[in-house]
């Protein structure tokens, strides 16, 4: 199976591609609108600022093909945040594939920000395909300062001061706020679930 990994110059693609290779999946890189249109399965990784990434998406003409794509799509970290309508970070406009607005995490004045490290994910929806076979309360690796509040698409939550969406699923659209490519066996299971989801 081939997976197209979206490159908008805002992510370190190597660890995602290596993780797919460990699962026996071949990966190519999607940079052009046509790459998105012909992709069978898409992963959208992202690191950095939401406003810059959103600008890159529209500048490169990728926002419309992504909205129109019927291929299964998995957003990772910032890539998941951009599935929503908007982000408080730099007042960015998202793809609007999921309802809601990404907000700054607030864990109190004395807590470190961003949230970085291994935190538990509590499953909130039975029958989720992305979290199938993942133990309730399993640890995943997070690095982020913003997050989507729990909503209709939420399938798992984690807490940093407050509960936020750790994973989302709506039809063929999936997202993880954590980094499955850096989350050991639990992360590999999530990626493998995505590769098998139709």
């Amino acid at each position, binding site marked *: 199976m081939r997976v197209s990994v979206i490159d908008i110059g805002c992510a*370190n693609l*190597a*660890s995602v591609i*290596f*993780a797919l*290779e*460990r699962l026996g999946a071949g990966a190519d890189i999607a940079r052009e609108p046509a790459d998105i249109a012909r992709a069978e399965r898409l992963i959208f990784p992202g*690191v*950095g600022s939401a406003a810059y990434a959103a600008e890159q998406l529209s500048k490169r003409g990728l926002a419309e093909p992504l909205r129109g794509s019927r291929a299964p799509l998995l957003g990772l970290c910032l890539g998941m945040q951009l599935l929503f309508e908007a982000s408080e970070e730099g007042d960015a406009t998202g793809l609007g594939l999921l309802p809601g607005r990404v907000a700054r995490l607030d864990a109190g004045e004395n*807590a*470190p920000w*961003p*949230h*970085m*490290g*291994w*935190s*538990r994910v509590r499953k909130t929806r039975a029958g989720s395909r992305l979290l199938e076979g993942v133990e309730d309360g399993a*640890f995943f*690796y*997070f*690095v982020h300062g913003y997050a989507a509040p729990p909503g209709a698409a939420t399938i798992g939550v984690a807490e*940093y001061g407050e509960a936020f969406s750790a994973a989302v699923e709506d039809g063929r659209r999936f997202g993880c706020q954590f*980094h499955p*490519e*850096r*989350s*050991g*066996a639990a*992360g*590999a299971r999530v990626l493998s679930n995505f590769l098998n989801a139709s």
Partner: protein
Amino acid sequence: MPARRIIPCLDIRDGLVVKGVQFKGHEVVGEIAPLARRYRDEGADELVLYDITASVRGAPVDLAWVEAVAREIDIPFAIAGGIRSLDDAARRLERGADKISINSPALENPGLIDALAARFGSQCVVVGVDSRAEDGDYFVHQYTGDPAASRAAGRRTLDWIKEAQDRGAGEIVLNCMNEDGRRAGYDIRQLSAARDVARAPLIASGGAGAMTHFRDVFEIADVSGALAASVFHRSIFSISDLKEYLISCAIDVRR
């Protein structure tokens, strides 16, 4: 709060993992990738790969082994040793490293911390501090990878920690040199003093020799992670046994 992290450190010299006592007299422990894999299998939360002679040699960490580890390992890892420029850092992050740890080059050029944080984000900028307790205070040392080059950096440790995080460091690793390799316990007093000034996550390094040392450094010094090398290299206990012990002490670690 995230789980407390257990972080094995692989000190690397000429492409092999080595271990020294008090930063001196290194002996070969084994190859990089098999050890990295073993620690990952035992439940390590993160790895640090530290090329101990890179700063002294004047050349940054070898790209080939950064990529070899990134291909194999599915937990975060930091690269340390001789990274002096944005380009040095970018090439290592592109090969799959998650964090860049800088030590002597940050002392030579503190602006490097600001530049790395602005370009890549604080989450991938770790500042390593080699510190020695002297006359009731703590002082930073540099070029500690080579006994002949190692020397005092002319800075107080607590001042340097504050400056590093003001410049954008996302994490501080404090190597307490008096304890390094002695396996007599972390320098709880120094780490507690550092914890009082650190807003960024603080990682303890130097002195781990028994499971109780990890318990104490988490319970008393309240660090986010504990780094160790020789206890794991010498299989004095495994990371999985250590984690079971910490859970029995009600310390939150990832299973």
